[in-house]
């Protein structure tokens, strides 16, 4: 996207040799991945490949058994002392998480707070912004996602597409350096998917670094600077969408793409 974000500058996200087990199951097997500043990285792949788990390791909602994740040069969830890395206590990790925005598949809006309260709660409590400033920004963000009139409603009264757009506004209210999207449109009715993808597209145009786990191969093709396809806990292919999606070399990737493109047709 941006010619200036070359390989000499530290990438925004650097995932180095990450392994994760769940019981006897190896979910992530030595994943290496990078996302440069201002770019959009889409993670595609079949269910159970470990895409969501990898995404959640980036903001330490999951902990890696081995390997380190760096965001903006800072190791996430652990502290380096000499040669060894020690896991950070929960209360220190939250400071790191404040810089990373996350949008969930199930929206996870707070049902007991109104829409505008959902959005300004974190900036006021975590960033200690004054309430009037936070409210102004909150209303501006709501207008940006096209829901200016819904500030005093409650999440339960809104459609899935509206709730997801508010979830995006809520994440943006914290002015994050990086936005993570965990299958943002998978819970939505097909006719509501478009409005959310539109918001994500306009966000990408502002130069926000984004990592999106998605099933929408078509959307990934349009919006991504790079696409990484995960199968079975490893990155099978990684590169610009034109090359990867048009001529995949890995047979597993070919099978996956054939299936998903057939489904979307």
């Amino acid at each position, binding site marked *: 996207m941006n010619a200036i974000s070359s390989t000499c500058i530290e990438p925004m996200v650097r995932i180095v040799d990450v392994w994760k087990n769940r019981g006897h199951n190896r979910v992530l097997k030595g994943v290496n991945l990078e996302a440069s500043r201002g770019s959009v990285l889409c993670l595609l792949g079949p269910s159970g490949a470990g895409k969501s788990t990898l995404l959640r390791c980036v903001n330490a909602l999951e902990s890696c058994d081995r390997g380190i994740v760096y965001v903006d040069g800072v190791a996430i969830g652990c502290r380096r002392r000499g040669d060894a890395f020690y896991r950070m206590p929960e209360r220190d990790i939250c400071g790191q998480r404040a810089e990373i*925005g996350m949008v969930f598949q199930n929206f*996870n809006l707070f049902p007991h707070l109104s829409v505008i309260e959902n959005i300004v709660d974190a900036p006021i409590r975590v*960033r200690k912004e004054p309430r009037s400033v936070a409210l102004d920004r909150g209303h501006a963000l709501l207008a940006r996602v096209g829901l200016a009139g819904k500030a005093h409603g409650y999440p339960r009264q809104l459609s899935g597409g509206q709730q997801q757009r508010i979830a995006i506004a809520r994440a943006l209210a914290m002015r994050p350096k990086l936005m993570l999207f965990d299958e943002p449109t998978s819970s939505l009715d097909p006719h509501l998917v478009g409005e959310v993808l539109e918001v994500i597209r306009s966000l990408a145009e502002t130069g926000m670094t984004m990592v999106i786990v998605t099933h929408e191969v078509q959307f990934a093709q349009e919006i991504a600077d790079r696409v990484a396809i995960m199968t079975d806990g490893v990155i099978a292919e990684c590169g610009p969408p034109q090359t990867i999606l048009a001529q995949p070399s890995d047979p597993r990737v070919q099978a996956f793409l054939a299936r998903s493109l057939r489904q979307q047709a």
Partner: protein
Amino acid sequence: MPTRTLTSLAERDRRMMSAPVILPAPRIGRWVGIPLIGIFAAWIAYQVLVNPGFQWAVVGHYMLDRDVLSGIAMTLELTVLVMAVGAILGIMIALMRLSGDPILSFCAQAFVWFFRGTPVLVQLVFWYNLASLFPEISLGIPFGGPKFYSISSTAAISSFTAALLGLGLNEAAYMAEIVRGGLLSVDIGQTEASKALGHRPFTTFRVIVLPQAMKAIVPPTGNQVIGMLKYTSIASVVGLGELMQSVENIYSRTFETIPLLIVAALWYLVMVSILSVIQYFIEKYYSRGWHDQMTVL
């Protein structure tokens, strides 16, 4: 235009009148049940009004008796304090249990096991007789070290403190399980979203999880409060002057057992009714956002 709609309405009514009618099923049970219940209720009302054993005049005399009213004040005071101790301690223990730390979790589970497992009566009498185990309560280094503060047990433990400790710790064990159940009922996505926004763990608990857990915590807690109101009567075994004790003192003198028990029962009923109304309003407060609200568009 209007005449056409009028004829179409009339037409529709005519068509409806000619369609087959479905009558409600005959309910034999109701024809038998209602008279039976009516007769039973009438018999109860008759007994209540006519049976001399109730001695309604005596009931009326003692309803606003000074000793009875001071007993009620003591009952209310004990209930409020016991529930406060139980709720605060219960929340702490529930948090210890859910903290993920194995030591805290073990201590919490041990507390709940012991204080739910032993009868309240035993605990009450134990606290009252603490002096036989520990003649002196002191704060200091154990196993023979220096003492910073000490007080004699008989002076420290009155019947009120014994009741407060015995009932309070027992209540804390039950409240811990109620709170834990409520916290577990909140969708884990809420905690994740809160963490992802950068909230500290205690803020996540206080602002996001606990308010949502209240929907599941308030009804069983209301149960506990109402139960505790009547359970305070057990404190009469350690000589505390609550309602049952006051009533027992009177009828052990005058032998008017039934009317005085009715006085106690009526007063408990009044207090429980007031608490039920309060519970209704608390539940309404905590279900904001879950029923249709007026939107300002």
